[in-house]
């Protein structure tokens, strides 16, 4: 903290960042007490698009809850699909055919690239550079087209089913994905040249928003935020699900703990996702894409179940309490940015306004997922 902010002779004022603000990517409101250009206290206020998905889970049958999974984190909906499918398969003991698992992984990783691309573009736009967003959007459109051709929707996917996926992928999708990977790989060095290497951006990101591994642990931060703080934690490796153990990829970890590290983790993850997709496409087995004998009306045995996946922003986990009927007794959705943003209040104390917004952008919040 600067001596200016610490001085006794200070006059503070309140500034409302949001709910409608270009830097908050949605309807997040941050009540900031400012001391000149320094932040004295910043309190995020949520709930502007709270939809009570958890109550919906109690009132709908297990199958009817599917469309909700696409509407939490609209940017990485497939990972959320994956979590719900995994949760119920764990509860019901359904064995998923291998081909379906590979398709799940391929689509989920495409979705992750897409999410990181938008995160990258929107982050740079927060910092005032508009052009990288458009380049990222260009690549992202390719992914959306691919996913649309297999899932039928562009954003709020409802593609997975208990025991498999809705429909099989075809050769067009496979060749299209390979062509995309070939096209996309050289783009990342271009982004690094245009954006990461830029001296202006480096000044804005390096050393801004330091987050120690300890504060991440205390606040339950996960995903690129945690990996940018030097902790090698990724559900795909640490708590392997689906066919991730059979695929080659590395977990990018940076030890700088600043906004640049978090940004770099996302950039590197895109390349790793490319690797996963390529490997999965090579290993893609033949076979059915739906498990046989999945009951239409699911009634998982009594008890509570937990399942976690690595979504684009961190650990997404679901805990459900079943009472043996066809609806859940209690459905709890643990969304990653909820925990990631909860440390903003503590970490942003004494920061400059522009740094704080750069820091907030590096947490990559998606508001519907926080508010649920």
């Amino acid at each position, binding site marked *: 903290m600067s001596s200016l902010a610490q001085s006794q002779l200070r006059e503070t004022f309140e500034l409302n960042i949001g709910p409608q603000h270009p830097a908050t990517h949605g309807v997040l409101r941050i009540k900031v007490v400012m001391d000149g250009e320094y932040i004295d206290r910043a309190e995020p206020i949520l709930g502007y698009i709270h939809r009570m998905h958890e109550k919906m889970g109690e009132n709908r049958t297990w199958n009817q809850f599917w469309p909700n999974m696409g509407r939490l984190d609209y940017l990485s909906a497939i990972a959320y699909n994956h979590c719900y499918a995994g949760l119920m398969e764990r509860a019901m003991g359904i064995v998923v055919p291998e081909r379906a698992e590979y398709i799940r992984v391929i689509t989920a990783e495409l979705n992750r690239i897409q999410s990181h691309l938008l995160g990258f573009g929107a982050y740079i736009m927060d910092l005032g550079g508009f052009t990288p967003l458009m380049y990222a959007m260009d690549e992202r459109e390719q992914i959306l087209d691919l996913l649309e051709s297999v899932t039928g929707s562009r954003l*709020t996917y409802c593609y997975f089913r208990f025991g498999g996926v809705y429909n099989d992928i075809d050769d067009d999708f496979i060749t299209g994905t390979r062509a995309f990977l070939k096209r996309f790989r050289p783009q990342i060095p271009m982004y690094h040249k245009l954006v990461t290497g830029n001296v202006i951006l480096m000044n804005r990101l390096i050393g801004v928003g330091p987050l120690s591994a300890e504060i991440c642990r205390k606040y339950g931060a996960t995903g690129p935020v945690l990996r940018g703080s030097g902790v090698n934690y990724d559900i795909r490796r640490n708590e392997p699900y689906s066919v991730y153990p059979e695929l080659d990829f590395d977990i990018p970890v940076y030890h700088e703990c600043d906004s640049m590290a978090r940004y770099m983790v996302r950039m590197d993850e895109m390349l790793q996702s490319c690797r996963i997709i390529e490997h999965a496409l090579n290993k893609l087995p033949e076979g059915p894409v739906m498990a046989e004998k999945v009951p239409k009306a699911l009634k998982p045995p009594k008890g509570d179940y937990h399942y976690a996946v690595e979504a684009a922003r961190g650990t997404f986990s679901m805990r459900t309490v079943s009472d043996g009927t066809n609806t859940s007794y209690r459905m709890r959705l643990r969304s990653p940015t909820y925990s990631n943003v909860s440390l903003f209040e503590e970490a942003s104390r004494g920061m400059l306004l522009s740094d704080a917004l750069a820091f907030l952008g590096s947490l990559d919040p998606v508001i519907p997922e926080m508010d649920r």
Partner: protein
Amino acid sequence: MSGYFKDIITGLKSLAVGLQITNKEFLTKPITLQYPHVAVKMTPRYRGHIELLKDPETGMNSCICCGMCEKGCPSGCITVKSEKRPGVKGKVLTAYILNFTTCSLCGQCVDNCKPGAIGFSNEYNLASTRREDYIYDLLQKLHPEGVPEPEVDPELLKKELEKQEAAKKAAAAKKEPAQKAPAKEGGESKAEEKS
């Protein structure tokens, strides 16, 4: 001090690299599609709103009016109206109303449909300023020129009529102890039919 000049030089170099890239992009052709003039072809799996499918053999829908789509819908946006017609096997669909304002395109109805009577349409130009425009009768959409009458099976019709009469007679027989006259009438009609 050496760091000072190094910073300047690397900084300026990084800026020049960025300018080079944008210049290159400036000289390449734009990739945007001019939407109202050019439109993308939708993929076959695109999920528009649901639609009733035409059975290629009969030219009719194959809905059996079981109401599974209605039950399975998370947001309750489907209403299936059906009635029993004389001489037609099963129920006849009279209206299939989809309230698209609440539909979330999840596909549960399509999953649940045993006869495969519904599927996703490829329509995406659905903008409108009025809410009522989103309440579709899918049966009307399937047959815009007018819903054809289902074929009447004469044998079935005959059987049904017989059944009806039998039921009437049974009902009349029940009432017999109270009123005798109607029973007589019933008896007469039966005799007529037999002759």
